[in-house]
Every structure is written in C-alpha cells, then in structure tokens.
C-alpha cells in the first residue's frame, strides 16, 4: 500500500534511510514541515500520522506503508485556513514562522487528545479527565520549541479555538 500524504498517494522510497521528514519535504515537495534539529528535540517536524502527532524526523518513510499523513498543508491553505491557523495569525502566535507548522499540527492533534480525555504531566489526577487550563496547554505544547518566544500568543490562539470548540 502506498503512503498517503494529505490524501495523495506516494510510493515508498528506495533508500530506507530516508526519514519521513525528508520524504515529505523532498519527495512530496511539502516544505511546510520543517527540519529544526533532526533529532526529536524541537518539534518543528511535527505531522499527524493516522490521527496522532509525531516527530517526522525520527521515523523512516519505509515504515509508513499504508499510513495516512497530514501535514500543515493538509490542514488549510492561505485562502482556506483552519481555525487554528487563523487564530495563530490573529494572536501573532509566531514570529519567524519556522516552528509554526509544527506548532499548529501539534495543537490540532492536542485538541483531539484533550477531547479524548488523555491526561498529561500537568493533570493533577491522572485517573480523571483533564480540563483545558492554560497550564495543560503549555505542558502539552512543550514538545514544540519556539525560539522567538511566541509561547504566550500560541497559548492564546489555542485557548481561543478550544473555547470556541467546547
């Protein structure tokens, strides 16, 4: 089965060394997914695979036979942005923009995780359902570094969309 990126099928690469990140950027030409560290230490490469957010740098493309990958380009376009994409613009949830696609992919999946009741390190009682406090947003978004320091604006953007959703 081919690998699907934003619903478009791709044949797997011949060289098994190709990371999913490099495959997305180079073979699929979708450069919205960023390489910030290539070692799972920054989150800029975050994409959503079969509904779960992962670091695309730390997985091989050949291991994603039949998987459904959603990248930032699959979430919205400049003319039809997603609610989170629009909120990031309104709240200035970025500066240089390099970590931004990863932030938004991460936030998109994160809202689903909250809806599914998944706990985090900021959840006082892991046996119960979490509530979406700012501290929960901050912890759940801590896998996405932003060196420009847009964190407060990122939290505000997510808070707005989460509030609208709930």
């Amino acid at each position, binding site marked *: 089965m081919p690998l699907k990126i934003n619903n478009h099928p791709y044949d797997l690469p011949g060289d098994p*060394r190709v990371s999913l990140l490099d495959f997305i950027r180079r073979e699929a030409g979708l450069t919205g997914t960023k390489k910030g560290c290539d070692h799972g230490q920054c989150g800029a490469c975050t994409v959503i695979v079969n509904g779960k957010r992962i670091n695309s740098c730390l*997985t091989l493309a050949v291991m994603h036979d039949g998987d459904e990958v959603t990248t930032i380009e699959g979430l919205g376009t400049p003319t039809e942005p997603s609610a989170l994409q629009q909120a990031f613009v309104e709240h200035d949830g970025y500066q240089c923009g390099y970590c931004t696609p990863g932030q938004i992919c991460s936030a998109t999946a994160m809202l689903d995780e909250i809806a599914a009741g998944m706990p985090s390190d900021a959840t006082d009682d892991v046996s119960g359902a979490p509530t979406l406090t700012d501290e929960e947003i901050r912890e759940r978004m801590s896998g996405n570094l932003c060196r420009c320091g847009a964190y407060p604006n990122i939290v505000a953007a997510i808070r707005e969309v989460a509030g609208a959703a709930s």
Partner: protein
Amino acid sequence: MKPFDYLRAEGLDLASQQTAPDGAMAIAGGTNLLDLMKLQVESPDTLVDVNPLSMDQIADEGDGLRIGAQATNTATANHARVRSDYPVLAKAILAGATQQLRNKATTAGNLCQRTRCYYFTNIDQPCNKREPGSGCGAIDGIARLHAVLGTSSECIATYPGDMAVAMTALDAKVEIANGDGNSRTVPVRDFHRLPSDTPHIDNVLEPGEIITGVTLPAPVGGTQLYRKVRERSSYAFALCSVAAIVDMADGRISRADLAFGGLAHKPWHDPRIGELLVGEEPSLALYDKAADLLLEDAQGYGENDFKIPLARRALTATLCEATGVEA
C-alpha cells in the same frame, strides 16, 4: 547513517533469528535508535522492523496487567487501568519526553533506550560504552547528567528514562522471547546492569532476544507519586527522579516501594529503604535515615556532586508528600 537492509518482521521467532547476528537490530518506535543512527553512534547493517508483530496489546493478566512490548507510551499512560490502578506509571511516562515522542516510543524501546551522556552521543569523543576501551570522557569532563550510584571507573552514564523507574517501584516483570519458542521473565529491577567493566552492555538481553511485554503485579494501592527534578519544567531528562508507592496503616508506614532515576546506570532500587520505613511512624528523622541508606556509597564526579544532596531532598520531599509530614 550507514546503508542497511530493511526487513519487516514476519513472526516472532524469525525476527529473533534475524536480529541475533552482530550488526542486526530491531526497530519499533525508532525515536532513540534513529537519533543514534543519524549520529553514527549506532550503525546496524540490518534493521528489522518489528511493528508487524503487533505486540501492542494492553490486557488484564490475572489481577495484574500485561503491557505489550509495542504498546506506545501514550497508550500505556492513557490506559484506564494504568491511570486508576498504577498511577505512578502513568505519571512517570507523562513526565518524560513529549506527546509526539510518546506517541511513537514503545514499552520495549523505552526499556532499552540508551544513555544521553554527551560523550556517548559524540563519536569524536572517548566512550567505553560506545567503543569499549576508548576511555570515559565524562569522568574528567562535563558530568552534569551523570551517575552517583553504582558507577565504575569505566563509565558514569545514567539510564535516562522515567517509565522504567516507575516499573521498578512496581516490581514489574519483563517478558523476553528467545527465538526457539521459549521465553523467560526478568524483573525490571534486574533488567538493567551496572556498568562495571563492560559498560557497553546496558541490560541482560542476549543477542536475538526480543522483549514481548511487561507485566505489572496486582494493584497495590497506596499513594503513588512520581517526582522528577529537572531544569526545564518539561521536555528535559531528570537530574533526579523518585517513584514512590507508599501506604499507611494505623499511623505507621505499611508499604514503601521506592525507585530512583537519574542517579545510576539503571533505575535504582534499594530494598533496605523499604525495610527501614515499613512499620515506622513517618518523620523527617526517619526519612533522613532512608536517605543515608540510599546514598551511603554515593560518589560524585565534581560536576554532579549536587545530585547527592538533591537526591536526599527529593527523597525526603516525596516521602513527606506521601505521608503528610509537615516540614
């Protein structure tokens, strides 16, 4: 990253045979292995993708719980029974890494993850763990992350994980298949080794052995805590961590299972601490004695000397929190 043959596992025994030779490795989540392969710290010539084995179930086993080797950290931490019956495990997993990493990282991979020692991950530096006989750069170098318990003159690396620290406190068991249809069970407490003069061997897995799952004993209740001391408030390895399962009866401690991360080449468990605590009334003086036991053979290497008083304080804080001692 060196070229390698990529194989998809077709059955456990075959995968076991395929990963047995020198130079062959299994890959599941890949979050640690690919990191190291990019740095050429690991350079397998055959990579066996064990994901097709689908060993990711989490299921009741007797009164306990069996967590498949390939259950992701997320699946484990989010499992209803883990959250209610083994909260120390959920908390420990959630204190580690990030959601993105936990979504890929697996039980077996997490147990087998390698040290984050700066010298181990830099192939232009000496490291007895990576290249036996090359020396240890950390002992006279940057040893901030490093071990104070169970070290050797060859290696002062730490096991970096959180999950296994909670599993150590829980006295979980690792199930290991060996490829001829046989399997063995090893307590998590005995799974990792101390470095001694063979620091390149992290754990007791033999070539070709594959972890198939981890079993948790019947729930023990009590107050379950995981305290992780770190420089950043998230996304950082522990300077020191404490997993604690503590229960009280009639004003006295009736259970005290503790394990420590960030201090040694393995999750640290000292049975004498539980023996000291059980049956006693909680007090700061008692916890000081527990810390004395924990740290009686501790040795700092300059940069990490701080871990010795830090471990004492983290232990005391955790026990105070668990037993309601005001300090």
